[in-house]
């Protein structure tokens, strides 16, 4: 995989909840087609960072740029201004997100979960949206369950529908927040397989995970976060095998 331009630029991102500073100035670049795994202890701010990238949280300082667009902001007269609702929505269309708890729409079937965004946001006709959604579901191996409601699907199946739902919007960047943490161990594999395929097709991905094997095999680079800071970033194997920081070392011995 050839790496080109940075697709994602994260600069000095600070996030506070009340008095608590959860992100203390994050700087990260993600190249186009690159898979970046974010690892780190619970509470270190990994989810918060992903949510800032998708503008589900608003950073208190700094900025995040994906391709030509800024998260929650637009450039006017050489200055960043808070974006309007429509601008935020169209930014989010280009950034797909997969949640730890799947968050499938509970009142919709698997197929409708995938097609609703195509129909209502991308404004495809109903039949086009359904057809695209079918293809996307087939792609994650769930064509035969298109009429099932989320409550009738296993966790692994739900997460695959959620991945199909995000991919169907044809985003430039996919964010995964611990996509396998809520799954029974025997269901983790099917979700990781799907994610591997997405990566192989050249999708740019930021993945928060505790699956060190996935990080080693699939990620181009791994970033270790602790207490709201990126402690170190590096090529996957190098960071996982010969970490330079003591904190990374002790974290890795604890999880492996």
């Amino acid at each position, binding site marked *: 995989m050839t790496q080109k331009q940075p697709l994602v630029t994260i600069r000095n991102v600070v996030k506070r909840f009340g008095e608590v500073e959860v992100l203390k100035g994050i700087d990260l670049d993600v190249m186009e087609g690159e898979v970046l795994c974010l690892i780190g202890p619970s509470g270190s701010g990994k989810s918060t960072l992903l949510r800032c990238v*998708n503008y*589900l949280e608003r950073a208190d300082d700094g900025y995040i740029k994906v391709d030509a667009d800024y998260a929650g902001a637009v450039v006017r007269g050489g200055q960043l201004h808070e974006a309007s*609702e*429509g601008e935020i*929505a*169209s*930014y*989010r*269309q280009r*950034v*797909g*997100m997969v*949640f730890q*708890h799947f*968050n*499938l*729409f*509970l*009142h919709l*079937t698997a197929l409708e979960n995938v097609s*609703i*965004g195509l129909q*209502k*946001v991308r404004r495809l006709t109903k039949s086009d949206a359904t057809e695209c959604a079918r293809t996307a579901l087939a792609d994650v*191996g769930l064509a*035969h*369950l298109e*009429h*099932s*409601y989320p409550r*009738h*699907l*296993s966790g692994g*199946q739900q997460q695959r529908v*959620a991945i199909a*739902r*995000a991919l169907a*919007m044809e985003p430039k960047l996919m964010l995964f927040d611990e996509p396998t943490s809520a799954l029974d161990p025997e269901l983790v594999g099917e979700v990781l397989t799907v994610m591997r395929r997405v990566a192989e097709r050249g999708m740019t991905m930021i993945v928060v995970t505790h699956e060190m094997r996935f990080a080693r095999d699939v990620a181009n680079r791994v970033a270790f976060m602790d207490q709201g800071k990126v402690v170190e970033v590096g090529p996957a194997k190098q960071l996982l095998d010969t970490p330079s920081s003591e904190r990374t070392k002790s974290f890795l011995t604890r999880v492996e």
Partner: protein
Amino acid sequence: MTNLVVVWNGTGAAYQLRQSWSTSIPESKVGEVVTGSTVDGDVRDPHARPVPRKHPSYWLSGAVALVIAGLVVYSLATNEKLQWPVFAQYLFSAPILQGLWVTIQLSVVSQVIALVIGCVLALLGESKNPVFRAFVKGYVGFFRGLPLLVLLLICFNAALFIPRLGWGDFSWDTNTLISGFTAAIIGLSLHEGAFMVEIIRAGFMSVPPGQREAAQSLGMKRGLTMRAIVIPQAIRVIIPPTGNQFISLLKASSLVAVIGGGDLLTRAQQIYGSNFKVIPLLLVVSFWYLAIVTLATFGQHFLEKKYSLSAGPQKKQTKPRLEEASA
């Protein structure tokens, strides 16, 4: 051939699979594998199952209740003071049926307006705009705090403090606009609306936040998120308390009798005001209230059933827990 294992249960009694329940088994037999059947005095048929217990007390209490109910009905039916012939005479009389119709209209129209008020204000309450949120809080606080009777009287007497409605050439005398009926509708709607706001907001809040976040992450705006994701899921939480509210509105609408709203109770009062047959007419009123409330309760059960499983119409019945064909 069935092999039955006598299982030690630690108390001296033992269970045998598919055999009589909790029979005492000598300790020497515990743990023994038995073939076919077993211990003396026990069931031989391996397919035996316990005969259900009889419940003579149910029958006894049922009989007592029937006797008491019979006595009550008898004493009511033969009580001269209740004047059943008068009851029968007025039950389907024109003024009573007109009053009943007005009661139904008042309740349905007020409920519909209240629903609109509730939806609009609940959405405003979700808004980022602090002025809207404060307005919603104020509305709910005011109209939920004011007793309905007082509110109805204020609406009816609005002309005393707002003599004319409208501006300039387009204004009308309040008294000609606001009859007892319109005052009743306004009062009931404003009052009911305050409760509907709270019910609908609770419905919105019952939808897990992850649903909105997923919708937003697909690029849905707030309005679309509400329409396509939140409201369809909130409906099943909103319906049961709305049904209860409607039933209490049906009954509370009788308060409009104080402003001559023309409802069921108003009509009955007008009749017994002239012929003094108070009790039979109140019985007529009670009969009709019970009838429409019962009807409304059935309607509520129907709606609850319809929306309990999935919000929105269930197009296809899905098979429970489908397993994947491919590993």
